[in-house]
């Protein structure tokens, strides 16, 4: 039996529809304990956020679940964000937990379209942690803050017993101000829009994987942690038709594309060949059997712009030192809604779905 001209048998269609219904059903956390998957930025994380936090705190300001919340205060609009940094190891090629924390917070504000101004920094320290290391982290944070033009204006310190906090955890909150009236958000992506990325992806995630030591791989890969507010400001100016920006952190580019497609109810077609990945990052991913599309960056932004602004947006990115390898990676289509399709380098197509948890190295 075939249905219409899609070549998909009718009975199969029924099964597929049943699956889609199940997927759209209210998210429920099935596990009774937290696993590492819940922190990976993929499906498990999303379900946790929706089923536990959104359910408990439900309010219109939280619902968009963007990187920063846009708040109307005293006649103006500010952006507020929070992040926690639990990276291990604390020090790695290209950075440490300190500049990661500052840049990450700045970036959440920047991609919302706000000008980042002030950060808070809370430290949870493990008994026995070396003070010299703490001073290094603080110095990194100051350097990153100066580079980004923000200040750390308040903070907190706690100490926990030996064995907890992996040395040092950092929590931040960030506040920025909107200098314009534009409402950015992934839900406003529409068919015809163009998707750009500011540079090669996956450097940070691979750096951390290699820095953990268990894999015994040596490669000249460094974290790409960087403050994106300069790039973001440039885009705001160059592209009046800028719909949204996101920074590509855990879950990688693939997760962001899925978030856009789901929020806006659109389809996305991306070209594998156009997504920039450094040679060594690609080599490490091939060796481990991991897809670079799901690997975290910490200094790359993904932007959705109107088709008229695509060229000027690309030029604006490339004019900035952090965006020299910026590229157009895909377009938004009318549908099928929520589906991200990848044209592979080989010329075939495949769907890029959200992963459940972290991409795991495989042998098969």
């Amino acid at each position, binding site marked *: 039996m075939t249905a219409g001209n899609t070549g998909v048998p009718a009975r199969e269609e029924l099964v597929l529809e049943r699956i889609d219904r199940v997927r759209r059903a209210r998210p429920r956390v099935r596990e009774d304990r937290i696993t590492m998957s819940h922190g990976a930025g993929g499906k498990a994380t999303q379900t946790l956020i929706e089923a536990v936090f959104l359910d408990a705190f439900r309010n219109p300001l939280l619902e968009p679940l963007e990187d920063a919340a846009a708040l109307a205060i005293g006649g103006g609009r500010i952006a507020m964000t929070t992040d926690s940094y639990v990276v291990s190891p604390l020090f790695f090629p290209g950075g440490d937990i300190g500049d990661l924390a500052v840049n990450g917070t700045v970036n959440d504000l920047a991609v919302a379209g706000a000008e980042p101004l002030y950060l808070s920094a809370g430290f949870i320290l493990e008994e026995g942690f070396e003070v010299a290391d703490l001073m290094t982290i603080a110095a990194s944070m100051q350097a990153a803050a100066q580079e980004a033009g923000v200040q750390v204006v308040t903070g907190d310190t706690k100490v926990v017993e030996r064995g907890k906090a992996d040395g040092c955890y950092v929590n931040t909150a960030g506040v920025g101000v909107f200098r314009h009236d534009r409402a950015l958000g992934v839900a406003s992506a529409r068919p015809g829009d163009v998707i750009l990325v500011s540079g090669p992806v996956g450097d940070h995630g691979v750096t951390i994987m290699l820095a953990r030591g268990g*894999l*015994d*791989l*040596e*490669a*000249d890969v460094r974290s790409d942690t960087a403050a994106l507010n300069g790039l973001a400001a440039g885009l705001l100016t160059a592209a009046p038709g800028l719909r949204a920006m996101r920074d590509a952190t855990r879950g990688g580019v693939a997760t962001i594309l899925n978030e856009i497609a789901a929020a806006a109810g659109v389809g996305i077609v991306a070209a594998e060949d156009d997504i920039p990945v450094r*040679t*060594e990052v*690609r*080599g*490490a991913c*091939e*060796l481990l*059997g991991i897809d670079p599309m799901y690997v975290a960056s910490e200094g790359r932004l993904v932007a959705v712009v109107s088709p008229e602004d695509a060229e000027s947006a690309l030029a604006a990115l490339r004019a900035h030192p952090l965006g020299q390898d910026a590229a157009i990676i895909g377009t938004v289509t009318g549908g099928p809604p929520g589906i991200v399709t990848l044209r592979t380098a080989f010329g075939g197509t495949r769907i890029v779905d959200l992963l459940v948890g972290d991409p795991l190295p*495989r*042998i*098969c």
Partner: protein
Amino acid sequence: MCLGIPGEVIEIMPDEPDLARVDVSGVRRVISVALLAGEGLKPGDWVLIHVGFALSRIDEAEAAAALKFLAGIGQAYADELAALAESRIE
């Protein structure tokens, strides 16, 4: 199965001839070449790597032959397309 990746031998470890450092697109790792003992492996050779072991030496001549066959098919196809484009019946 399954995940085997081609890599270039950079050096045989001086104290342990069963181990070699290989390079995969700029990423390096020390792997065991014990399964290829007796094949006279040397720097510049390419091997197939699976879970930290070299399973087989990649035969460059065979690789070239395979590509030539594929290119041949590709050329024949391109020729056919060209012929199709040039020919007219009406």
